[in-house]
């Protein structure tokens, strides 16, 4: 391969000096090869860089031995005082083409750019992907004979094109006619990226509505609104009411992550309210949590207020009033019950769980915040004042900010605090 390259280089050298540099105009999305350029397509226009390229550069000093800096990574360093956004991404991509029209290492550059996209926040942006596809040289990788069409022509580049499209698919970006034209120019009609594009056009349209519980595309930034969204997903009953017990106040410090007052948002439906009013005060209620709920890429944690199922002996039979319906008998006094042929009640997958009375999402996961939630719930459910509430807060690893030491002490404190809470509540209700 290298000898062929050397021969081509020898042919190109005299021509390239007279050749016109192919400048990539900023802002132009297509780079068309000007027809008047009398150079070989496979030659690089600057003779010096082609000599330097085969020799690998030694790692720059000041780097850790394990960390290998990808070539062209310095293009993606933010300008001093500049933000990492779409414009700087576009600038970085264009700068790649600027320093050499041959675009050596474009495959690696494209992979690098794909990795850098989330940092710049452009992974959902179709224009960025089109810009990236534009980095490929045009007309070079198109197969020109049947033999080339049989085998994957320029497999690394085709893989790279497919990788770009895969990232688009992963982020749900729909390619458009520009992408199609670019792919056609770069890879030709029967190539793998083109096939992938055609399949994306079909299946991405069909898959737009397959989520039975769709989330809005842009998640709300406000914590309380995000909590409301999460609660509405957990409790699908449309009659349920969301109450904001406490709004999170921004602290005076610049740290927005840890406000003084965490937000508490709760949800309860009228059926749950009725069930709570009927609940036997002798059986305790448990506040369990936190359970995680993923909303796209954000995780919120919710707590539930539930009770255990009463044991079958204690379950009170629903009293059917004797004189109930004025118009027709609600109960036929016949001896026989439903035959097994028509019995659709048994479902082996359904497990009877205890009732859940309310759900909340709070900023902090400690007992004080949740106690405030219970107090807020008491306004709508006066029966809650007489029922003991046990806090069963599981410590979960990961994104919770509580230290594990505090968690252990909290769990041991829990047993002792049950009675304390009960007494506290009784005192509160009496006062």
């Amino acid at each position, binding site marked *: 391969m290298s000898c062929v390259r050397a021969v081509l280089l020898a042919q190109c050298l005299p021509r390239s000096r007279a050749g016109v540099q192919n400048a990539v105009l900023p802002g132009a999305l297509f780079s068309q090869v000007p027809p008047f350029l009398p150079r070989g397509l496979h030659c690089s226009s600057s003779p010096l860089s082609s000599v330097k390229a085969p020799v690998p550069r030694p790692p720059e000093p000041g780097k850790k031995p394990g960390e290998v800096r990808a070539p062209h990574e310095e293009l993606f360093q933010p300008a001093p005082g500049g933000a990492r956004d779409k414009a700087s991404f576009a600038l970085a991509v264009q700068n790649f083409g600027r320093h050499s029209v041959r675009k050596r290492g474009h495959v690696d550059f494209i992979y690098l750019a794909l990795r850098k996209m989330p940092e710049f926040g452009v992974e959902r942006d179709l224009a960025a992907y089109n810009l990236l596809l534009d980095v490929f040289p045009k007309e070079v990788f198109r197969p020109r004979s049947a033999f080339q069409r049989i085998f994957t022509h320029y497999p690394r580049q085709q893989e790279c094109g497919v990788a770009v499209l895969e990232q688009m698919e992963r982020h749900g970006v729909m390619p458009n006619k520009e992408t199609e034209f670019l792919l056609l120019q770069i890879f030709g009609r029967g190539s793998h990226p083109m096939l992938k594009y055609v399949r994306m056009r079909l299946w991405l*349209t*069909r898959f*737009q*509505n397959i989520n039975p519980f769709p989330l809005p595309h842009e998640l709300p930034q406000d914590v309380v609104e995000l909590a409301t969204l999460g609660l509405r997903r957990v409790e*699908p009953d*449309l009659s349920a009411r969301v109450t904001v017990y406490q709004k999170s106040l921004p602290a005076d410090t610049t740290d927005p992550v840890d406000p003084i007052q965490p937000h508490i948002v709760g949800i309860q439906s009228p059926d749950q309210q009725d069930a709570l009013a009927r609940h036997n005060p002798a059986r305790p209620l448990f506040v369990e949590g936190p359970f995680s709920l993923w909303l796209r890429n954000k995780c919120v944690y919710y707590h539930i207020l539930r009770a255990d199922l009463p044991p079958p002996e204690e379950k009170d039979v629903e009293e059917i*009033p004797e*004189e*109930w*319906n*004025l*118009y*027709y*008998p*609600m*109960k*036929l*006094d*016949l*001896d*026989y*019950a*439903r*035959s097994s*042929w*028509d019995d659709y009640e048994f479902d082996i997958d359904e497990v009877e769980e205890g009732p859940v009375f309310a759900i909340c999402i709070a900023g902090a996961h400690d007992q004080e915040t949740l106690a405030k939630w219970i107090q807020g719930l008491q306004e709508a459910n006066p029966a809650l004042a007489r029922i003991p509430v046990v806090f069963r807060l599981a410590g979960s690893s990961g994104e919770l900010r509580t230290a594990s030491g505090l968690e252990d002490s909290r769990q041991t404190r829990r047993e002792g605090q049950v009675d304390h809470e009960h007494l506290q509540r009784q005192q509160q209700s009496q006062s």
Partner: protein
Amino acid sequence: MEEVDSRKIDQEGKIPNDTLEKLRSLGLFGMQIPEEYGGLGLSHTMYARLGEAISLDGSITVTLAAHQAIGLKGIILVGTEEQKTRYLPRLASGEHIAAFCLTEPNSGSDAASIQTRAVLSEDKKHYILNGSKIWISNGGLASVFTVFARTKVADANGSAKDKITAFIVERDFGGVTNGKPEDKLGIRGSNTCEVHFEDTKVPVENVLGEVGGGFKLAMNILNSGRFSMGSLSAAMIKKLIEMTAEYACTRKQFNRKLSEFGLIQEKFALMAQKAYVMESMAYLTAGMLDQPGLLDCSVEAAIVKVFSSEGVWQCVSEALQILGGSGYMKDQPYERMLRDARILLIFEGTNEILRLFIALAGLQHAGRILTTRMNELKRGSVRVIMETVGQRLRDSLGQTVDMGLTGQLGLVHPSLEDSATKLEQNVYYFGRTVEALLSRFGKSIVDEQLVLKRVANILINMYGMVAVLSRASRSVRIGLRDHDHEVLLANMFCVEAYFQNLFSLSQLDKDAPENLDHQTKKIAQQILEKRAYICAHPLDRMS
């Protein structure tokens, strides 16, 4: 009745006083009150016949019905002598008007949620009544109310339970206020308003029936007032036929009279048929009620009510349609009659609830008879199993059913023989289906409302067939005028009802392809989950 200006009553929302005076002088306020208390003492049949005459104006009919059929029925049924002598004469003369107070904001058919309370006072001579009732007909005009309230009743084993009791409350007892008359779609002349009771003192002597017996009394009152709707509706349809036939035979379009077009003729045939069936059913039921002894004709009365209300709604709609654009205008009476007829489907028990009642009452009766059979089958007695298997085999091979309606000593005139055979077949296969349903569902059939609806429809059709066949045979045999027209109407109704029944029966089979209950429930569940129509708009694109 010709002097009544229905249009004015509809527009003003009030019946003029001189009309009420005339009704009083005719004694129409006491049609069912026995003669010794000053009423006309009419039997059920005569009451139905008079009802036909009154039915021309909906508001007057409803005012009189609310006064007599439900307002005073309680006193007539279970009132003591003293209560009767105190109230009935004045009510019969129309001096006082009665109203029936049962419905509350939270309880329509659910008697357990009545919140009006009557507490015995300390001197045990009065009940203090507190509560409010809504949608009381004659609420503004009435001075005697039959009110249903909860009282504490000591049970047999000593525990105190809340039971419903009926009271006769006069407006003079104090604390009775009524709201303003409601603005309604139809029967605008009748006065419907809320009635509030605040610390009304009701003497103990005014308890109607026994303390705690209010529920049964309410059921009896409601069940007994229904059958007259058949004759009322029939009279309305007869008047409609006259009015629209006049129009259809004079108006010409495309050089032909409207009456020559097939679709218009179909409408007239439908109206005549419905009127005939309604009349027959109503008078058959009235006749049964008039027989000596206490017969429970609540199911038949409910059937009459359901069929008549739906039939009259359909017929008034068709009559309006015959007139086309002019039927839609307010200066013609059709739109007023349509609006008045709409309430018939709702009050006195909504048609859906009555269908459930018809089906459940019948199934209860059938269930008791079949219990012994079912028990034996479950125990596996060989003889019963062989009988059942033999019967099923004969059914599937298509046996002929003979119940004595046709043939040499048949009850039905030979010109109605085919219809009678159809009725017999329907009855037989209905019996088989009911057995199958009870063995499939048992007690839990109360929850299968779609199944009960079909059973009720079959029952309504069958009762109509019975009524129509008996009336037609009688008119042929005694030689009434135009009896061949009656035979024609009877046969036509029987054929239609027969095929409708066959379809319903096929839908009641297990896993029948005609039965779309499962799909209905699934669609309803998905829509009610989102509380909206969930399909994407036809113009939506996936671009």
